[in-house]
């Protein structure tokens, strides 16, 4: 099996259209599943594949599916999370824009596995043009009998609709997404109850990321075991990476999990190295919410092992010396970038996107933004750095949804690894407006006691 499972046919002329997609073997997975697999068999295949959620948290998809409550007579729903708004992440858009039928095929398979007869794709409001493309593809799928009543004579019915958000990042959080889909304000719900028990309209619901759902197609085509053979350890299969920042070749890449980070950044096949021959300063491997890694922890872990593109290796060392694969929003910084400015920029985003339900996130995000701005502008003090640490610490873990954590982690990581650069801003209030600090010095991390 080739390394590309999702983007295999991406360069085929006209792959966006139904005819071309079908000619390339499209919808064969649906045929196979409806003819030869029961819904439970399909859940089993996905469990075997080891597929983990591609939306950020990396929760095993098969396990999530098996948690779905199935009370008699109550409809169940599958919702596709296409709200993709995490800074640095743009892979779902690429997939939907280029090969929309892959997502639709995945939606049919996943809905069949879950026994859902009405499924939705919730798409980010700013992706209106992508929504038109997916809408067109849904119409083609209906016209060719892949959606609607009694699909391919199997007795399975599925209606699929796509609906846009209104531009709020928070609506990517699964319970806020559900509220929004119900026509309400997108405030995250408290859990429990979990969506698997009470989701959309209080019915059992599964929410999955675009890429997760698309990955079910190759899993059905090749079998769960074959999928699990790709990748490394518990990071099975392939992953779409949105590569951006100071690299020669930004874009969306499909990689086999387990690829060395060094190879991903420097090889011609992927990012093609740092732009203009500059040195690498920092990396955010999984979207703006995950901790930033300083240059000396990018290609090697603190233990001196090769850092790999996998859930485990990127997290190696915990938050002290590691990060997370997250959504695969891979942002590379060269030596000319300012970490204080970057952290401020992110905190501005979280401040703007907080739904405002819980006091720590509502008030803390704005406070952090203001303190960071002051530091960035050369008006900060050493106490400001400790203050920031204290604010993020009091937000983290104390909120309803993980947006609070997502706002806290980047600040914590920036201070942890780039403190000398923050202090330099305080000591050099004029100079910090004229030039950037450059690389920070390597810290030796003590082995953490168990």
């Amino acid at each position, binding site marked *: 099996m080739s390394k590309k499972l999702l983007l295999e046919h991406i360069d085929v002329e006209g792959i966006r259209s139904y005819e071309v997609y079908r000619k390339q073997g499209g919808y064969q997975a649906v045929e196979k599943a409806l003819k030869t697999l029961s819904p439970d068999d399909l859940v089993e295949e996905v469990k075997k594949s080891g597929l983990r959620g591609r939306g950020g948290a990396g929760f095993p998809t098969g396990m999530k599916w098996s948690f779905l409550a199935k009370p008699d007579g109550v409809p169940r729903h599958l919702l596709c999370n296409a709200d993709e708004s995490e800074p640095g992440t743009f892979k779902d858009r690429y997939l939907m824009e280029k090969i929309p039928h892959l997502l639709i095929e995945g939606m049919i398979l996943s809905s069949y596995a879950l026994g859902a007869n009405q499924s939705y794709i919730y798409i980010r409001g700013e992706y209106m043009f992508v929504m038109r493309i997916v809408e067109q593809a849904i119409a083609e799928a209906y016209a060719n009998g892949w959606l609607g009543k009694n699909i391919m004579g199997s007795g399975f019915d599925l209606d699929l609709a796509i609906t846009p958000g209104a531009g709020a990042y*928070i609506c990517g959080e699964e319970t806020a997404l559900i509220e929004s889909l119900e026509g309400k*304000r997108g405030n995250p719900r408290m859990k429990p109850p979990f969506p698997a028990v009470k989701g959309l309209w209080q019915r059992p619901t599964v929410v999955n990321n675009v890429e997760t759902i698309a990955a079910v197609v190759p899993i059905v085509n090749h079998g769960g075991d074959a999928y699990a053979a790709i990748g490394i350890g518990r990071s099975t299969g392939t992953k779409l990476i949105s590569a951006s920042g100071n690299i020669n070749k930004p874009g969306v890449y499909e990689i086999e999990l387990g690829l060395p980070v060094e190879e991903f950044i420097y090889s011609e096949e992927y990012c093609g190295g740092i732009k203009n021959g500059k040195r690498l300063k920092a990396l955010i491997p999984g979207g703006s919410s995950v901790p930033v890694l300083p240059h000396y922890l990018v290609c090697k872990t603190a233990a001196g092992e090769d850092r790999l593109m996998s859930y485990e290796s990127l997290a190696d060392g915990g938050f002290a010396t590691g990060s997370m694969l997250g959504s695969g929003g891979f942002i590379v910084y060269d030596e000319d970038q300012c970490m204080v400015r970057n952290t401020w920029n992110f905190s501005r985003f979280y401040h703007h996107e*907080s739904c*405002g339900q819980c006091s720590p996130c*509502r008030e803390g995000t704005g406070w952090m933004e203001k303190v960071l701005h002051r530091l960035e502008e050369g008006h900060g003090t050493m106490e400001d750095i400790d203050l920031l640490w204290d604010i993020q610490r*009091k937000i983290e873990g104390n*909120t*309803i949804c993980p947006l609070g954590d997502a706002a806290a982690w980047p600040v914590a990581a920036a201070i942890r690894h780039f403190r000398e650069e923050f202090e330099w801003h305080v000591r050099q209030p004029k100079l910090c407006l004229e030039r950037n600090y450059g690389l920070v010095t390597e810290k030796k991390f003590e082995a953490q006691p168990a």
Partner: protein
Amino acid sequence: MSENSEKFTVTIDGKTIQVDRGTTILNAARQIGGEVVPPAMCYYSSLKGSGGKCRTCLVEVSKGSEKDPRPMPKLVASCSTTVMDGMEVKNKTSERVVDARGGVVEFLLLNHPLDCPVCDQAGECKLQDLAFEHGHSKTRYEFQRREFDKIDIGPYIQLHMTRCIMCYRCVHTANQLTDKREHGVLHRGDAAEIGTFIEKSLENDFIGNVIDVCPVGALTDKTFRFRSRVWYTKPMDASCECSKCSGKAVLWMIGNDIARVTGRKDENGEVTDFICNECRFDKKELSQWKVEGPRKIERSSVISAGHYEQEAPAHTPLLNKA
């Protein structure tokens, strides 16, 4: 014994009690009473869906249950977490809780004006009580606070968003009173405000209750006569014959004049019977009421402390910063 009649044993700060399954940690603590009760700024027992937002009620679960004794890794909102059999909870005895709660109080006060002396709610404000008990004596916030204009929402009620802590209690109240509501809160994050739907639902006979549920001075009674400080008024339990509500109210008196009328609150500061607009806003003559006697105010509030003016300057978070 049926599953549902089963009692759960829960221990909070070393005090053990048996409660019905489905009881929240907060309500179990309230059954024990006293120091073990976490403060609650957004939860309100009679308002369905309330709670979970302010995070003042965070507690540490040091033992999950008899069956699964593992502690919960994060602090949990006690108002919206149900007890398990054998659960052990730490409120004030947990350093983490005290630390996090101090943080929450600081967050709540961040954008809140520190001008209690000119606020109508002063003396009966839950936020003031909370800051009094858990706050620090100095603010670390050096930026401009958020400000809004006061708006009249209907003839009786004034909204001053500047003081709002986004507890959503008024939203739930309006929600519960009328099914016409769609949006209670406009905008996001710290730009969020209570929206116009309340203005619309003001036609409802019971909407005046949003004033009573509001823990701070964001929603106030425009008919409050004399604009007196509450601690100069004397609360009296009184009742009247009313076709719309129980008629059980509290009259806040200045001499023989009724300054204002509110619902009666229990020891948790929650209204026991919602009163109608007519009782609240229109019956301002003593002849319209049967006075039952003076009302005891049980909360650790500054009204009952009775020495607000000596105490307040010492607790600078409320006063030191314009």
